[in-house]
């Protein structure tokens, strides 16, 4: 390295000093600007608006024009003196005519004052100063859209397209415009393009597209599905969830990878699905999260959703994966309740009973009673009423217990069932059906009716239908009701012929029973489903004309209308 000459050193020193002299006022100025802005903001927050106006003017004087003008705009708006900011704006625009903040405020204020022509003139003036800048178009079109003036915004964007050569720099505004105009497929396409560069837009896109009417949603789906981008999949997943199609939503985001921040997306989706009661979609999302980052809490949440969704088999698999990672206490408090729910739902009461027995010493009396009730239901589902009774008796001697009442019903002891189900803890379809029978018949016992309800509880619908029909012979005072139940079960099994035979029997033998109108309606629906329009019309007309006082008449009229109009079911 050569020797540095004295002149060179002096030059460097001069330069350094010079830089120091130049730089030294900047922190001072910055401090002054910050202090002025803080003071103005504090005054504004304190509601001292008049003082805040002076303070924001001070901020402008320090050189922070943008911040100062925005402050003035806010304060004057609160004082309903929006136009008072205009003189300040005009003088500042003389100095910096193309300042984007000042121009945007000017447009906003003029619009809020309803001075549309002036706003348009201000926009045109801004364009003259920045003819190739997309910002003026973005600002003005955005403001027009915010006002709901889609057609005017469209004109501005067309102008942008002509002047700039394209609207690439205005994709967000174009997307918002298309949504505002109800061009949903085009809006989806524009949003999809916008998200390729601006991923943060996902929530905005969901907000915009979720308003698409039902008839237009398929076009939105098609656009988003066609995109390989993760952002499009995420948006589609959330949209489907909002539109009530949670399983489709899950399918949209299931293929995301770790690189696409899949875990967070799935987590958000699962929680929302859980909140909506879309249990199986929630189960799928939690299970996928568990595969990506195994955690017992996630697996158990997936299991819980699976049970609530009526798929206990998958719950047991998830429980097994979580169980191996947990301590005994956690297993007892978190895993065991889910296992009992899943096993009893499957009718595997013996296994549930064994699990409870193993931990019995560690369980309090209340928990044991609750498990006993669940196990009793498990036995019922397995068709073992005696074991259900034994399970219940072991934990509770209360004859009035609701589960005991159900067991009594299955035994055919209608009197005991009637007493126990008088005040049900919840109103389910099963309770309503049972109460309908118990209040309809004066009989105190019926083996056939009990067997029918038991078959229904076991999920043996074929047996249930046969036994309800048989019970009709045993309980003549409730025969139409029992026949209607049998027909309902057959219809649910898509066994139309036996269902129709039962409805015919009700209409001919029990024409004045309340179930006769229901039989007509259900028969009509079945015929309509099968394409027999004339038959459906016959039954709907029969219902309306024969049972004019029935509560089903308005529904029958609506369906008759739909059949005549040729609306598909």
């Amino acid at each position, binding site marked *: 390295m050569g020797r540095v000459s004295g002149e060179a050193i002096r030059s460097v020193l001069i330069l350094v000093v010079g830089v120091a002299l130049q730089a030294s006022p900047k922190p001072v100025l910055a401090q002054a600007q910050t202090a002025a802005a803080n003071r103005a903001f504090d005054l504004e927050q304190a509601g001292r608006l008049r003082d805040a106006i002076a303070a924001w003017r001070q901020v402008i004087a320090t050189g922070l024009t943008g911040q100062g003008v925005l402050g003035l705009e806010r304060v004057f708006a609160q004082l309903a003196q929006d136009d008072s900011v205009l003189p300040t704006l005009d003088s500042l625009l003389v100095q910096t005519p193309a300042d984007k903040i000042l121009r945007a405020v000017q447009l906003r204020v003029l619009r809020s004052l309803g001075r549309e022509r002036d706003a348009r003139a201000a926009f045109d003036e801004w364009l003259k100063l920045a003819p190739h800048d997309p910002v003026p178009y973005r600002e003005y079109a955005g403001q027009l859209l915010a006002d709901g003036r889609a057609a005017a915004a469209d004109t501005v964007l067309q102008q942008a397209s002509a002047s700039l050569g394209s609207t690439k720099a205005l994709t967000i505004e174009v997307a918002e415009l298309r949504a505002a105009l109800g061009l949903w497929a085009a809006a989806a396409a524009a949003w999809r393009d916008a998200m390729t560069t601006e991923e943060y837009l996902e929530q905005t896109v969901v907000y915009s597209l979720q308003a698409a009417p039902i008839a*237009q949603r398929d076009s939105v789906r098609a656009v988003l599905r066609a995109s390989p981008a993760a952002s499009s999949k995420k948006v589609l997943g959330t949209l489907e969830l909002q539109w009530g199609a949670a399983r489709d939503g899950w399918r949209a985001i299931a293929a995301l990878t770790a690189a696409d921040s899949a875990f967070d997306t799935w987590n958000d989706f699962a929680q929302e699905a859980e909140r909506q009661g879309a249990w199986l979609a929630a189960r799928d999302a939690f299970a996928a999260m568990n595969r990506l980052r195994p955690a017992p809490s996630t697996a158990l949440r997936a299991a819980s959703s699976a049970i609530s969704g009526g798929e206990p088999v998958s719950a047991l698999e998830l429980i097994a994966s979580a169980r191996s990672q947990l301590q005994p206490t956690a297993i007892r408090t978190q895993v065991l309740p889910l296992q009992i729910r899943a096993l009893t739902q499957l009718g595997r009461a013996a296994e549930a009973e064994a699990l409870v027995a193993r931990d019995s010493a560690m369980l309090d009396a209340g928990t044991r009673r609750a498990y006993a009730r669940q196990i009793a239901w498990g036995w019922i589902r397995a068709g073992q009423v005696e074991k259900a009774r034994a399970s219940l008796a072991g934990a509770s001697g209360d004859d009035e217990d609701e589960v005991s009442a159900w067991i009594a019903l299955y035994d055919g002891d209608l009197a005991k069932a009637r007493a126990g189900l008088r005040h049900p803890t919840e109103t389910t379809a099963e309770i309503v059906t049972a109460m309908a029978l118990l209040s309809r018949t004066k009989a105190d016992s019926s083996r056939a009716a009990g067997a029918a309800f038991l078959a229904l509880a076991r999920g043996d619908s074929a047996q249930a239908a046969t036994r309800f029909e048989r019970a009709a012979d045993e309980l003549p005072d409730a025969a139409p009701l029992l026949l209607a139940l049998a027909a309902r079960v057959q219809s649910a099994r898509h066994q139309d012929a036996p269902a129709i035979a039962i409805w015919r029997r009700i209409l001919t033998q029990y024409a004045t029973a309340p179930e006769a109108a229901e039989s007509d309606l259900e028969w009509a629906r079945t015929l309509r489903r099968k394409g027999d329009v004339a038959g459906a019309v*016959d039954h709907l007309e*029969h219902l309306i*004309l024969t049972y004019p006082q029935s509560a089903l*008449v*308005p529904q029958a009229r*609506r369906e008759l209308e739909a059949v005549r109009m040729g609306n598909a079911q």
Partner: protein
Amino acid sequence: MRNVLRPVLALFTLCTLLFASPLTAQHLLVPMDDAQQNHLKAYGLAFFALKAGDRAEWFLNYRGGSFLLPDDPALRRKAALDGVTVVPVDDGAVAAARKEIAAGNMDAITLEKAPHIAIYAPAKSPPWDDAVTLALRYAGIEYTQIWDDEILKSDLSKFDWIHLHHEDFTGQENKLHLGFRDAPWFIEQRDNDLTAAQRNGYSNIPALKKAVAGRLHDFVEKGGFLFAMCGATETLELAMAAQNVDIAGPFFDGTPMDPDADAKMDWVRAFAFQNAHLEMSPGVNAMSDIDGHQVNVPTRRQPLGQFTLFNFSAKFDPVASMLVQNHRQVIPDFYGVTTSFSKAVLKSGDVILATEDGAPWVKYLHGDYGKGSWTYLGGHDPEDPQHNIGALPTDLSLHPNSPGYRLILNNVLFPAAKKKPLKT
């Protein structure tokens, strides 16, 4: 199985009908006041009676504009199926009603034949509903759908009544290109119209629609009844008055509007309006200053209020009375491409049927032209005040007592009335 059951059901139904109501009644009174469960289908019941060759009477201003029909099992059956309230009455009760009618501002009008109705609508439905089509379908009133080819080539005199709704007779497709020019339905609609124009020997859509407007003008002049709603009212008038001037923007015929179009309009040819001013800007979604509400021009849009039906003397103004029969006098307003009609542009002979108190516009108009007559009702759908493009059609089974839809159906039955010297 169904074939076996049908006779049983029919027999059962007949027995029910025979034994459910008095057998001594000679007439069925269809009340149209608040006792009526389904006002809209009641018009269908009256039409059904006329179609079957029965005579009916319309009791103007009596219980909301009731109908008197002959007692007939088929009518009773239809009334029961449709949920229409009917009251079996004997000759004594009818005589009492007639006495009451004679003493008050009421009259009994004979309805003698089911009118032949045509609705001007494209074969492929656009993404908006047509209130008249909805009303007729719901009430079960038969109609024939016609479009440009039928208007231009067929004999319109076979129809008693033609309805127009949302169509733009200036040929500018309601200026929807401003917001929907890329929408597939808009492109298809424009292409179809262009094809129809070329098929009929016209170079563009405005020329085609002017010709259609001319035929409709002749239809009324020769004695037809015309009912129009929404944008068809304003644009038909403009098209008729602009037979010799270009009022269409360049998007549709390739040439700008005639800058002197306003001055060249021949309002003598128009039915209802005069001296209206055209909207000269092709970028503004309005046609003229006929519409008082200007819903598609945000800076001009007026808020919705409610309109009041006028009362007329049933004995001296039976036509106007028929058109305003209703169980409500004040009805919430509803937007359309044309919502209302500025008072400033009305011709002196126009009969105002409904107006908004204090507003510079009217809602419902009627008038005679040549041997025929026309009725205009502003707005698009009485039960959907802001009907948007793409919105589902209104389900009228949810609005069986709609007073707004009743106005439409009044027009449908009005041509069924037996001709007698009209004072209006």
